[in-house]
């Protein structure tokens, strides 16, 4: 144990040797525990995490985003198509989306774009028609207009836009941020201005819609132009995003009664993916008879809520309980969970849903049996 004479004199003394070694061991331990962390904060990771997308939200984006993994169904929505990874503990998570300009969301302020189905084939169906809703259009508006008014009253800066989905055209009906037009109806003390404006514009729109369709025969299965109103809603929301650094949190609410038109599938899916990319949830409230597969997929993929109310007499209750809350508060509520969305495809030849199929590598047509030649694009 005799150290060489040229080494430190202190080491020879037992009283100084052991505490020194203990101190060294302690330093070694501390370095091993924390040193690895220090080593990994090199310049590169430091840069990437602070200067990239940097969504500098006043509200922590984890809370405001609709797709919180509170339910297994909702987390699968994120898993299904290229997930946004959002562990709750880390505030600087970069959400997976295509490059969007950095956005600042205001607390609690929402922009609600309502896509309202005004298809006369649905609302005005004869009682013998099994697709007739149990609610008439006027009673439906009785539920809808107070709901719109309540959204406007919830916050001073809330904004509501109504787009009508007609059978031959789509158009803007109401925008709460545009200056109100002075007319005799709006000055009435009994009706708030939103009601009168919506009713007036809706009537004008329905007259125009019928005018357009007068020359042509009734087409299709009585579906309305859902893809048109979704596209208009998305264009409007992009305009709001461009308006300034601080803007409300947008969402789209689809009130649909007509059945889905299969010719609109590609356009509706394009709109859904664009909404997913801009992080705009699409909520759906189906007042028709059957479920809408398009809207189920839309709500699932974008992280919105899909609801088919059982008792249409209480529609206002459903609307105000489920769809009136802003996105930030949704993480605290138990909202209707998505029920088994079926993402299987149908084959082009028989139109039945298949588990395994054959896809053409050129045109992506789906077949149930192997063919030598693709009938859609003609390649073999």
């Amino acid at each position, binding site marked *: 144990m005799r150290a060489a004479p040229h080494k430190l004199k202190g080491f020879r003394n037992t009283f100084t040797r052991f505490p020194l070694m203990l101190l060294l061991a302690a330093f070694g331990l501390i370095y091993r525990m924390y040193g690895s962390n220090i080593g990994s904060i090199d310049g590169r990771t430091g840069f990437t995490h602070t200067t990239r997308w940097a969504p500098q939200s006043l509200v922590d984006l984890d809370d405001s985003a609709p797709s919180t993994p509170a339910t297994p169904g909702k987390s*699968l929505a994120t898993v299904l198509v290229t997930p946004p990874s959002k562990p709750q503990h880390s505030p600087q998570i970069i959400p997976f989306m295509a490059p969007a300009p950095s956005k600042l969301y205001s607390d609690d302020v929402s922009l609600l774009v309502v896509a309202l189905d005004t298809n006369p084939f649905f609302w005005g169906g004869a009682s013998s028609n099994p697709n007739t809703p149990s609610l008439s259009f006027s009673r439906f508006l009785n539920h809808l207009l107070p709901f719109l008014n309540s959204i406007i009253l919830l916050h001073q800066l809330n904004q509501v836009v109504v787009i009508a989905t007609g059978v031959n055209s789509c158009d803007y009906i109401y925008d709460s941020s545009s200056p109100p037009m002075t007319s005799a109806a709006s000055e009435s003390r009994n009706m708030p201005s939103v009601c009168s404006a919506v009713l007036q514009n809706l009537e004008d729109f329905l007259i125009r819609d019928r005018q357009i369709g007068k020359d042509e025969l009734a087409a299709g299965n009585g579906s309305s132009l859902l893809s048109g109103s979704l596209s208009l809603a998305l264009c409007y929301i992009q305009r709001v995003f461009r308006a300034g650094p601080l803007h409300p949190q947008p969402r789209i609410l689809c009130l649909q009664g007509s059945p889905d038109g299969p010719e609109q599938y*590609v356009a509706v899916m394009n709109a859904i993916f664009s909404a997913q990319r801009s992080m705009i949830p699409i909520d759906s409230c189906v007042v028709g008879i059957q479920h809408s597969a398009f809207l189920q997929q839309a709500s699932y993929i974008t992280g919105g809520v899909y609801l088919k109310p059982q008792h249409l007499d209480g529609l206002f209750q459903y609307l105000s309980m489920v769809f009136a809350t802003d996105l930030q508060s949704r993480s605290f509520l138990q909202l209707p969970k998505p029920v088994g969305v079926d993402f299987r495809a149908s084959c082009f030849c028989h139109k039945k849903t298949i588990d395994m199929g054959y896809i053409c590598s050129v045109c992506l047509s789906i077949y149930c049996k192997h063919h030598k030649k693709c009938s859609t694009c003609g390649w073999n």
Partner: protein
Amino acid sequence: MSGGAVERRFEFRKSNGVRGEREEEDREEEEEEDEGNGRGLEAWERAYADERSWESLQEDESGLLRPIDNKSLYHAQYRRRLRSLSSSSSSRIQKGLIRYLYVVVDLSRAASETDFRPSRMVVVAKHVEAFIREFFDQNPLSHIGLVTIKDGVARCLTDLGGSPDSHIKALLGKLECSGDSSLQNALDLVHGYLSKIPSYGHREVLILYSALSTCDPGDVMETIQNCKKAKIRCSVVGLSAEIYICKHLCEETGGSYTVALDESHFKELLLEHAPPPPAIAEFAVANLIKMGFPQRGADGVIAICSCHKEAKVGGGYTCPRCKARVCELPTECRICGLTLVSSPHLARSYHHLFPISPFIEVPSTLPSNNSYQRLPKNCFGCQLSLPNPGSNPVLRVACPKCKQHFCLDCDIYIHESLHNCPGCESLRESKPSNTTKV
């Protein structure tokens, strides 16, 4: 800096290479010291010296500063790009939707240059991550692999995979750059990997080249001919200067060669490779590929997932052929090898098959005075009020099919993200095409 000269050196033994490297490093250190002494600028001063933002101001006739109209510049740029993309043919061109792409990242000594801040390697890694996400967003059925070139040797960083997470994790790890760059070694490695993929896939390589030279163990022209025979489409995005060998490679294989001027330009050039390129018909055999559409497992069912090899409760998907559980889609079943997708993944590629026609500019001069009243006052998409077309910059565009007017921002959004014309979708018409159904 390697002097800016275009060189090709043939090196046959590694020991020669190591010695040569050390000599060159000594020379480089001397150059760097000279540069450091000559400049003597702080980092904030260098920002002014390098960027010179005052040069982009303009003056009008009376000498007052004119505000730069970025919006119309951006729109003009966008329309040029759109015209160049659609100029080849007005009808639908076939695109390769199932792509197997290798991204080759150059981690040679030249990647540590600081002309892109903080260094070329950092900028490349950052933008490749964005590119990977965009790529899988636009091509959900395709696969990407990553290859790096360092010390003259090409190594595979990640294998061909269909989900972005593994690649991004590898990119975020520590990357170091050193040594020379070798184009031939990279092409040989990629050629070896891409020869194993199925015949219906389109083979592509995207090389991000920072170096100004390539150090190859053999004849790189022969490798280029091999790639051409194997039908691999090679594209290069250069970060330093145009190099003849890269240009030759791209011309021979049918790819595109671009050189980035600065960071934002690099990002733009890189993201241009995300949408599928026009396919050359002989390159991939058209086939019917067997794919499975799994159903979601019921909540509460306990199963062992085949990707993580651990028991999971609820969720997940069941392979229709072998009934194994997988966690996410799209993927390949590990047990039976069936490609598993869901219908939204296929739907993501439909807009490549049914593109919308570009909008035409509404001319600013009109024949008669009455036409001002007939023009719509608002953009059809966003209801923004459009001023009358009398002033010089073009402020409105119209769809050739439905004749609705749109503002410039809606035009960009519709063509880049939405892929639906709101005017055409809001019109009920008998459409003979687009009769796909799920």
